[in-house]
């Protein structure tokens, strides 16, 4: 099987030849190429060619199955709305926001106006779309290239307003929050749309930190799920692709689990990646078997960073037989840490393939 067939298999609920690996590479690709972040991006600029190479070279080096179409951080658009980026130059750092555009509610009307033209003005976004075009032309025939985005609250907490303030706003001024979220979600939808137009050819993958780690299931019903629906529907309607969701939090208790049920049965999410607290057997029983959708097997990120290889080997050997062959893909519990050593990354991909291949053939 090739990588696209492997993806197709787990979407259809068929057993692939081996478990596909989706390493969720964001900043890691920069360091993996021997660069630091200021070599690739900065306030108001991004090098499209280098952004593309962060993907192309890591796919070649590690031979994993699904990729994003460019270098990604979480702060695209911030500086065009009046915020400031922080781009660390030391190994292992990630881009952050030194200043958010909406520090008080009085800032919002002005920021809202700027949002209307952000895609025409923002150089980091424009060059990211160029990078996607380069990537899909070079490796898009063999590799599923995912679009990505952050639904409303998560996007608002990186693009517009710091998380702590946004959390308090949810209690103090929910109308203001909904206005922020409406616009943040529209931004997300447009960014996804442009990524497909630039060449992304596969799943839309959403990252949501506003799961039960931050807000209650009830709040998620108000500030989370309705916005996910909008994204899922656009992606299905305009590009005929499925949307997968990476959502943080603990989903064991009934109310929280209800959110997952709702996401799958009502919002139309077609794949899930939870965090490391959810074991392969729990995921099999509560998601894969129940809903017949792809589910990420979350390997705890720091273990990839600290290794060593024999530990990764041992754990993959233990993990794989507890996974559902028809629906599982291997993934880190969140973004792969930026400075994971090459040998650990390789061991993780190779051991996943070796043990899953053995296990799947015995089924």
């Amino acid at each position, binding site marked *: 099987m090739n990588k696209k067939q492997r993806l197709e298999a787990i979407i259809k609920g068929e057993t692939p030849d081996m478990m596909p690996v989706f390493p969720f590479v*964001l*900043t890691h690709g920069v360091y993996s190429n021997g660069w630091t972040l200021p070599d690739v991006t900065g306030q108001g600029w991004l090098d499209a060619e280098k952004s593309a190479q962060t993907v192309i070279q890591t796919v070649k080096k590690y031979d994993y199955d699904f990729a994003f179409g460019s270098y990604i951080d979480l702060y695209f658009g911030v500086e065009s709305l009046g915020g400031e980026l*922080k781009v*660390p130059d030391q190994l*292992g*750092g*990630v881009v*952050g*926001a*030194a200043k958010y555009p909406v520090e008080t509610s009085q800032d919002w009307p002005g920021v809202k106006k700027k949002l209307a033209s952000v895609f025409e003005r923002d150089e980091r976004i424009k060059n990211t779309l160029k990078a996607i075009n380069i990537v899909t032309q070079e490796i898009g025939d063999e590799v599923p290239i995912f679009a990505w985005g952050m639904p409303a609250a998560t996007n608002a907490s990186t693009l517009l307003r*710091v*998380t*702590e303030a946004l*959390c*308090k706003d*949810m*209690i*103090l001024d929910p109308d203001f929050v909904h206005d922020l979220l409406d616009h943040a979600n529209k931004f997300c939808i447009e960014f996804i749309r442009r990524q497909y137009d630039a060449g992304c050819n596969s799943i839309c993958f959403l990252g949501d930190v506003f799961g*039960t*780690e*931050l*807000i*209650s299931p009830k*709040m998620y019903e108000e500030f989370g799920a309705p916005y996910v629906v909008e994204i899922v529907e656009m992606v299905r309607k305009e590009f005929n692709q499925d949307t997968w969701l990476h959502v*943080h939090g603990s989903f064991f*208790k009934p*109310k*929280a689990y209800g959110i997952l049920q709702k996401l799958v049965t009502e919002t139309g999410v077609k794949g899930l990646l939870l965090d490391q607290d959810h074991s392969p057997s729990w995921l099999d029983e509560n998601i894969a078997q129940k809903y017949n959708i792809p589910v990420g097997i979350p390997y*705890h*990120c*720091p273990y990839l*960073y*600290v290794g060593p290889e024999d530990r990764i080997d041992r754990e993959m050997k233990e993990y794989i037989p507890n996974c559902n062959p028809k629906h599982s893909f291997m993934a*880190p*519990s*969140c*973004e792969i*840490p*930026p*400075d994971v050593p090459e040998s650990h990354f390789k061991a993780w991909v190779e051991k996943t393939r070796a043990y899953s291949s053995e296990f799947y053939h015995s089924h």
Partner: protein
Amino acid sequence: MADMQELLKILKEGVINYQIEEVGKAAQQVLDEGHDPLEAVMDGLAAGMEEVGRLFDEEEYFVPEVLMCADALYGGLDILRPHVPKLEGVVTGQLVIGSVEGDVHDIGKNIVRMMFDIAGWEVHDLGRDVPLEKFVEEQLRTESEIVAMSAMMTTTMQAMKRAIEMIKEKNPNVAIMLGGAPVTKETADIFGAEGYADSAGNAVSEAIKMVARLREQHQKKH
């Protein structure tokens, strides 16, 4: 003149229901009317926060509610704390706390900080997105027994390992505590930290144990 029991009830319920103004007024009334500020902190504000902790553990409250409760708590604590005498016989210490470089999330760190404030520790809060060398400098400047670091992102938690190495190089006798969503006990061990707090609730008790161990080691050496 208000009855102290009545004021304690206002302080406690004000924290639970995040009534910032009411808590501030009641705290001022405690002082104006000559009541015991320590009793107001412990049986009013801290008792309220204890109930908030229970609601959080039972998943009735989540981060937004706890942040609001914290604002109410500080509304009272800032007024009362300058008037609270130093406690005799209670294990406290000094602590440097911050979210590591690259991490702009400090919700968890602020909640932990609040628990140490209530417990009477001297807290040196470096804020969020703290350059690693700043942890080293602040620990040396304040001679704090504990350095507590938090990270909410898996990407930024790697910085903790480097920070621990830098701190230990300058002062091997300091104890490090880690916390944050992606951090586990095992990660803390691997990174070389002495302590790990899986919640704000146990951060203080963990720190007290760490300080006790440090002092024991210090006494053995001398």
